[in-house]
């Protein structure tokens, strides 16, 4: 067998086994995406109810003075919670979240605010470590199936940082950077400010009933706001998980498509090489026979 044919066949084998792996990853992601979407969907009622309740308290008490809603006069430090994935194989998923976070950092720096990254997901942690960026907190191991206690952990750390003055290692603002799951084909990085809370009253729900509060509006708000923050973070974790899996499915699908295309081109090349070899062999035989016939007739 000719050397060229051998190398082409070896490449075909490599591409084939790569295609098998990416195809498997694509199928795994397709089966997981439905589950991830269901989980995000199931978390909807809790998130809606808690937002409605916070709105109700705020609309009732008019102007509220709560540490979690009070803007710092001169913010100097801000926590940026970045949600990335634990595993790779998901295309530009992590790159686009980290790019969004870098954009936010630049905006904050313009205002003279120093950003402190809080990172969830191994890929983001590694990215920050490699660049020697000091992180305020890091969590990993749950990016594709987040549980509520993961949100609780993150919230506790962030609220603790928010409770401290900036001069003492605390932060004045908290931002959240994650990927929104728009559809199977579209996932969009998004930035939200978590704290201080900007409470906007939605007008679609109609008039809010006049609640009685037990024990008191202030106490209810005290309990409610941390849960509200936690619910926002949990929602973001679920959304980001669904987006990660969708991104992985898409990346793996295009990798499989690419591999198949490559396979076609390589097969064609292999056929050509084989044909060239045969042609060469025939012409060698014909040339040899001619030479022999000439030498016989010439003698």
């Amino acid at each position, binding site marked *: 067998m000719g050397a060229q044919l051998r190398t082409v066949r070896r490449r075909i084998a490599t591409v084939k086994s790569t295609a098998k792996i990416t195809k498997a990853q694509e199928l795994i992601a397709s089966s997981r995406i439905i589950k991830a979407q269901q989980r995000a969907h199931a*978390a909807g009622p809790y998130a809606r109810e808690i937002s409605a309740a916070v709105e109700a308290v705020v609309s009732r008490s008019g102007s509220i003075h709560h540490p979690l809603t009070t803007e710092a006069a001169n913010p100097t430090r801000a926590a940026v919670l970045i949600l990335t994935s634990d595993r790779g194989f998901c295309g530009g998923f992590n790159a686009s979240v980290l790019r969004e976070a870098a954009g936010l950092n630049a905006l904050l720096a313009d205002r003279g605010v120093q950003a402190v990254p809080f990172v969830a997901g191994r890929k983001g942690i590694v990215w920050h470590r490699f660049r020697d960026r000091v992180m305020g907190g890091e969590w990993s191991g749950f990016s594709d199936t987040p549980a509520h206690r993961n949100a609780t952990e993150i919230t506790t750390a962030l609220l603790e940082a928010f409770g401290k003055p900036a001069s003492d290692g605390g932060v004045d603002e908290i931002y959240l950077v994650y990927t929104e799951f728009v559809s199977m084909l579209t996932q969009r990085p998004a930035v939200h400010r978590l704290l201080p809370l900007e409470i906007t009253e939605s007008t679609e729900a109609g008039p809010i009933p006049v609640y*009685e509060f037990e*024990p008191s509006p202030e106490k209810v708000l005290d309990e409610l706001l941390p849960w509200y923050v936690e619910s926002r973070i949990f929602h973001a974790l679920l959304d980001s998980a669904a987006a990660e899996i969708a991104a992985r499915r898409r990346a793996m699908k295009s990798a499989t498509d690419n591999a198949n295309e490559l396979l076609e081109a390589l097969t064609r090349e292999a056929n050509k090489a084989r044909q060239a070899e045969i042609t060469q062999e025939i012409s060698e035989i014909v040339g040899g026979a001619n030479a022999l016939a000439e030498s016989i007739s010439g003698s």
Partner: protein
Amino acid sequence: MTLRVTLVVPEGEIWSGNAERMVAKTLDGEIGILTGHTPVLGVLAHGSVVRILPEGEGASGWISAAVGGGFLSVSDDRVSVLARQAVLGEHVDRAATRADLEAAIGAASAGGQGQDNDEVGYLRALLRAAGEEA
């Protein structure tokens, strides 16, 4: 007229349906809810039991659920109980919960914080919801 009750935790809904009445415990004390109740937004006592009497059930049909922190909102005969964690009484594994409770009490008294931390309270509520003494 009936109450429409939903019991929700962050991961999803654990019970919903029509009910005749329900009883919950807020920080101020027990509150019983029938149809036509004024709108209320109350913080639930940590580690308490919410009891619901579904529509058309006799006095033996009460459903109990243990809740560990949460709140309750009532308006227009709609009752939402939002809990950070909650389990229906019928789903409680009594033996395992009792073992957990003893371990939690042990840990709490070893830590010198007395016996009444949130975890102990929630585990006690689980047992009460399952119909045991705790």
